[in-house]
């Protein structure tokens, strides 16, 4: 044994084998070192970036769009979280997904199976499967655990009051950008600013480290409107009822608070459902009360009379010869539609809405006298309500008015206005001669106006306007028991291709209440009533009455018509006679 082992030891291995081994090992180490050197210094940036891509991510911090509320804090527009289902077709192998999963997916998303399959074999790394679904459905979709399908949280605007506030509030695009109405005008403050932050994730996609916030998300600011939700609904439904009853093309209503200049309601019919994009057509989207201009007709007469009173051309009881309702100027004849008499006082002219009388009053003045009152009342000027696309209407410069123009403008033909402008202009009769700036923002405090006429003139015209709703006036249907109501009817022939259409009218009514201290203005216009009635007093005045009645109770304004109150008191104390 010993001799044998000894002999093994005695075998001398060739030296080169040991050397070879050492060299090989050394070279191996050198290769490793070189590789390490290469990775850590030469190629370091690239590799580090690649590694970071695997775990670090910059995520967007979504800012929520500001809430829009009415004056009492009720939501008019609100952003809700919805999920968008996206897919990465690159990660999807259609054959490997169980067919029943795909069927379930198509059921949940309400999409055709073929459509989903087509989407999933596209050569892209990102496709939308279905945008903006409810979070509950989204959860079920994720429960299917189809690889490559993921969710993205988005926000969607919801309008709880639907078509009643549609024109006013407007709507946003799918990406939450204001496109119409106040959503558009207040985009900057409503939108807020989305931020971003860097995070590290682990393999389970959990956030393990917040590296830092690059910029914090700033949520949009809330917008409190001057609108009263309930009043808005009443205005909308009355406009709708009137338009349907009188087979009209459209109807609009504006309600103004004279003290604050706040627009309490502004509604049009036809409207659309802002929660359903498929109902959008340009015709329905138009906010007619602000964007459409029309010839106001007789609702402009009080301004003519105000100008004449202001310039001391007439007094309320000045008698004017209305020549039995026919008055020739050159080749044109001005007609009166309402009962004709030969001599009317200025008050009578307003009460019965005499065109001839108003034209004659107008011709007593210089064009400039009338123009000044009209222009200072805001006609031909932007109402600066911040509503997108508001019109300034048209009022030609007095320098080149012809006689006939001066006559027709006095009763509202040859000028055009928007309903909002008209309502605003009437604040001069509510605020003792002051024109008040209007707003859609909640203001809640008295606002100063700019003087247009003296308070004496304003009071005289207001007294005349009150006779309109009293017996013998054109607007008796606007009377509200318990309240003194002033107003003016308007029935204008519509212009069709530059010609006045014989059988197409625009009926309007603008009024104020309570007369003892006017707090509210309601303006109504009904376009092309064709159900048989077309006078402003028949078509628009009842709408005015309903909306005004509601507005007076909503704001808790005390009745001021003591005649009726005395009568009621007597009835209660003594019982009906």
């Amino acid at each position, binding site marked *: 044994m010993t001799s044998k082992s000894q002999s093994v030891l005695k075998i001398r291995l060739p030296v080169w084998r040991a050397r070879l081994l050492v060299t090989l090992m050394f070279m191996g180490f050198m290769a490793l070192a070189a590789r390490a050197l290469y990775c850590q210094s030469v190629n370091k940036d690239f590799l580090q970036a690649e590694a970071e891509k695997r775990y670090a991510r910059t995520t967007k911090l979504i800012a929520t769009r500001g809430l829009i509320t009415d004056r009492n804090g009720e*939501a008019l527009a609100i952003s809700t979280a919805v999920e968008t289902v996206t897919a990465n077709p690159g990660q999807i192998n259609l054959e490997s997904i169980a067919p029943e999963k795909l069927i379930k997916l198509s059921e949940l998303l309400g999409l055709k199976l073929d459509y989903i399959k087509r989407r999933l074999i596209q050569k892209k790394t990102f496709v939308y499967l279905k945008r903006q679904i409810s979070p509950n459905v989204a959860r079920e979709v994720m429960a299917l655990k189809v690889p490559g399908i993921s969710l993205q949280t988005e926000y969607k605007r919801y309008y709880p009051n639907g078509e009643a506030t549609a024109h006013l509030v407007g709507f946003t695009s799918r990406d939450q950008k204001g496109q119409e109405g106040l959503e558009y005008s207040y985009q900057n403050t409503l939108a807020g600013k989305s931020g971003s932050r860097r995070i590290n994730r682990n393999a389970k996609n959990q956030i393990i*480290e917040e590296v830092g916030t690059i910029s914090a998300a700033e949520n949009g600011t809330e917008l409190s409107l001057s609108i009263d939700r309930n009043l808005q609904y009443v205005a909308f439904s009355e406009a709708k009822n009137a338009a349907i009853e009188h087979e009209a093309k459209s109807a609009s209503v504006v309600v103004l608070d004279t003290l604050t200049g706040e627009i309490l309601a502004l509604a049009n019919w036809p409207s659309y459902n802002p929660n359903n994009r498929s109902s959008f057509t340009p015709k329905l989207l138009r906010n007619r009360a602000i964007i459409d201009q029309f010839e106001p007709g007789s609702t402009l007469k009080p301004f003519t009379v105000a100008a004449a009173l202001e310039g001391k051309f007439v007094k309320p009881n000045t008698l004017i010869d209305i020549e039995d309702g026919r008055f020739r100027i050159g080749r044109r004849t001005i007609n009166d539609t309402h009962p004709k008499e030969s001599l009317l006082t200025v008050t009578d002219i307003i009460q019965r809405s005499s065109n001839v009388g108003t034209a004659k009053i107008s011709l007593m003045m210089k064009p400039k006298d009338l123009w000044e009152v009209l222009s200072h009342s805001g006609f031909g000027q932007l109402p600066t309500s911040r509503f997108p696309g508001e019109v300034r209407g048209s009022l030609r410069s007095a320098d080149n008015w012809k006689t006939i123009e001066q006559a027709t403008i006095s009763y509202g033909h040859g000028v055009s206005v928007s309903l909002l402008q008209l309502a605003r202009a009437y604040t001069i009769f509510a605020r003792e001669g002051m024109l008040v700036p209007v707003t859609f923002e909640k203001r809640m405090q008295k606002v100063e106006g700019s003087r247009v006429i003296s308070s004496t003139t304003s009071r005289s015209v207001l007294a005349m306007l009150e006779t309109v709703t009293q017996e013998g006036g054109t607007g008796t249907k606007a009377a509200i028991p318990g309240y003194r109501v002033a107003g003016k009817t308007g029935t204008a022939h519509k212009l069709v291709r530059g010609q006045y259409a014989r059988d197409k009218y625009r009926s309007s009514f603008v009024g104020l209440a309570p007369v003892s201290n006017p707090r509210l203005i309601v303006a109504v216009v009904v376009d092309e009533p064709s159900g048989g009635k077309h006078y402003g007093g028949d078509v628009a005045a009842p709408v005015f009455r309903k909306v005004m009645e509601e507005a007076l109770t909503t704001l808790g304004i005390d009745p001021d018509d003591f005649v009726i109150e005395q009568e009621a008191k007597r009835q209660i104390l003594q019982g009906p006679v």
Partner: protein
Amino acid sequence: MRISLLLFILLITSAISLVTARHDTRKVVNEIELERNKALQIKNHHTNLVIEKATLTSRSRIERLAIQKLKMKYPKREDIVLLPPPPARAKQ
């Protein structure tokens, strides 16, 4: 020799505490993330409640329920009796 032993122990403790600290941070970050998600969910829930409230209290719905379910109706003109305001308010 003693000093290097001391330093060695310090080094090991520091290394271990670094690892635990990192682990703790991860746990806390994860927790805060969960809480944030919860806050978001609550906010979303609140939004839904606001919408629900707006829908339930809408004037059209109340009107419909009052007329159909409660059989209420708007008073007619002649059914309304106006009372003079109380003296204190009438003085104004």
